[in-house]
């Protein structure tokens, strides 16, 4: 069970990195993610079935996700639609596109090779083989985290942080804050689609409904991580998000092992998220009173 918590937690960790950008840095409630997660999965599944090396499908998923972010960004910035609505519009439209990409609502990958089941993983010695999947996912999550850390320290990264912090500063720096927002949404949704692709490779099927609740899971992870480790100033927010997502997955697993049925998964997800949200707000209030 611990292994599966780690595997899924790390996959959702990649997702949390994306939501860290929209929710935490840009302050943009981006619902696109509920569809860009299955978008990544659909792209990865279809391309894998067509014989593309699984790792290459991950890159294609990244690209597809960034396009989804681009659409939401353009709707918000160029058509002046409110942030939440822009995401909902893209999310709704993408549902059909995802179906079109996959061809049907369910796409199993049981027969062929996947990222975690191929000639290489079969040749691994038995003592490491059970951990191969978790290790591979860890590598991908780590690579995504380090790249994001690096990006946030570049000039473009500074601008992204400024856009969420105080957009007026971006404008007075003679930069188009709309473009910066679009850039942020593209990176965020690219990461979310990557998470979807990795998830699809790990569970070896694509399902059209796998994206429902993505935003809630990702947000819960970010909020758990950043609240729990708030005092650990040495820790980067990207690390907090990934750890938060593993913890969150563990909570859900415990809830299920305590007898809650898997059919109630989304309900558990929502209730847990509400609890976390309320708790983090209560804590913030306390700090304000002390201050």
């Amino acid at each position, binding site marked *: 069970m611990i292994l599966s918590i780690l595997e899924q937690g790390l996959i959702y960790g990649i997702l949390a990195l994306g939501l860290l950008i929209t929710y935490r840095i840009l302050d943009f409630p981006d619902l696109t993610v509920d569809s860009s997660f299955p978008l990544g999965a659909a792209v990865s599944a279809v391309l894998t079935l067509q014989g593309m090396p699984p790792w290459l499908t991950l890159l294609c998923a990244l690209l597809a996700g960034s396009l989804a972010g681009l659409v939401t960004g353009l709707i918000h910035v160029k058509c002046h639609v409110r942030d939440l609505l822009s995401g909902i519009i893209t999310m709704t439209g993408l549902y059909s596109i995802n179906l079109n990409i996959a061809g049907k609502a369910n796409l199993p990958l049981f027969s062929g090779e996947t990222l975690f089941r191929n000639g290489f993983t079969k040749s691994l010695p038995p003592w490491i083989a059970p951990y191969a999947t978790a290790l591979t996912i860890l590598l991908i999550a780590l690579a995504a985290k380090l790249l994001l850390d690096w990006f946030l320290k570049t000039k473009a990264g500074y601008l992204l942080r*400024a856009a969420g912090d105080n957009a007026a*500063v971006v404008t007075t*720096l*003679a*930069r188009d804050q709309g473009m910066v927002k679009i850039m942020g949404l593209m990176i965020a949704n690219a990461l979310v689609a990557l998470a979807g692709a990795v998830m699809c490779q790990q569970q070896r099927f694509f399902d059209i409904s796998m994206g429902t609740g993505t935003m809630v899971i990702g947000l819960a992870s970010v909020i758990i991580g950043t609240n729990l480790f708030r005092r650990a100033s040495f820790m980067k927010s990207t690390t907090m998000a990934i750890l938060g997502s593993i913890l969150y997955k563990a909570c859900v697993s415990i809830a299920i092992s305590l007898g809650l049925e898997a059919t109630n998964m989304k309900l558990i997800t929502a209730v847990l998220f509400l609890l976390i949200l309320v708790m983090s707000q209560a804590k913030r209030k306390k700090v304000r009173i002390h201050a």
Partner: protein
Amino acid sequence: MLEFDAITKIYNPGTVHETSLFHDFNLRIEDHSFVTVVGSNGSGKTSMLNILCGTIPVEAGTIRIGGEDITKVKEFRRYRRMGRVYQDPAKGTCPTMTILENLAMADNKGRPFGLTRGTNRARIQAYRDMLAPLGLGLEDKLGVPVGNLSGGQRQTLALLMATMTPIDFLILDEHTAALDPKTAEIVMELTDRIVREKHLTTLMVTHNLRHAVQYGDRLLMMHQGQIVLDKGGEEKKHTQVEDLLSLFNAISVECGN
């Protein structure tokens, strides 16, 4: 030369709340002049700045800089040549970013924001040297998030950030109004020094009549979208706070206040 030519500005056009602020508004400002602007609330001071910066559109008229029509130029593009400091000290800086990160960003204005390192380490000493003479101790706090600073410290930082890179215009929108009297003096003196050193064409809106009289080389008073007083050169030097106050009162009586 900065020119407002026959500007018309109407708020809420086509609704019952339609109000015309500017009707055929004209103003010329010479290069390298330091203009202070006073006037009651709603007189159009801040609207004038917003029109100049492109924050709000106009219904008619043209704005020209050096003869070039910038009426249709987008706001963010206009800031290539302008720096702006707002009344709210929180508006000019990014609170979760450190002093160093804020300065590094401002230092890069006008250049591409690409994938190179955000902070140029070679410039850190220059930033320290810039902050040290202010006597606010900011030079030792480069790693502190700006949100932890006081309003005065943030406003000083915002002023430095706005004037770090080569610009032609400095737009000051009541930038000392939210500060305590002592800090307001410090920020005002710093402003004056920067404007002189860099020969910036400056438009400063203020409610502090003494600042309006003491600083700058031209004084405007605005009322209901019109310039009711315009004193430059020798005339400005002889203007007293009392003169402004009596005019202010006369206008207010007219309005029935």
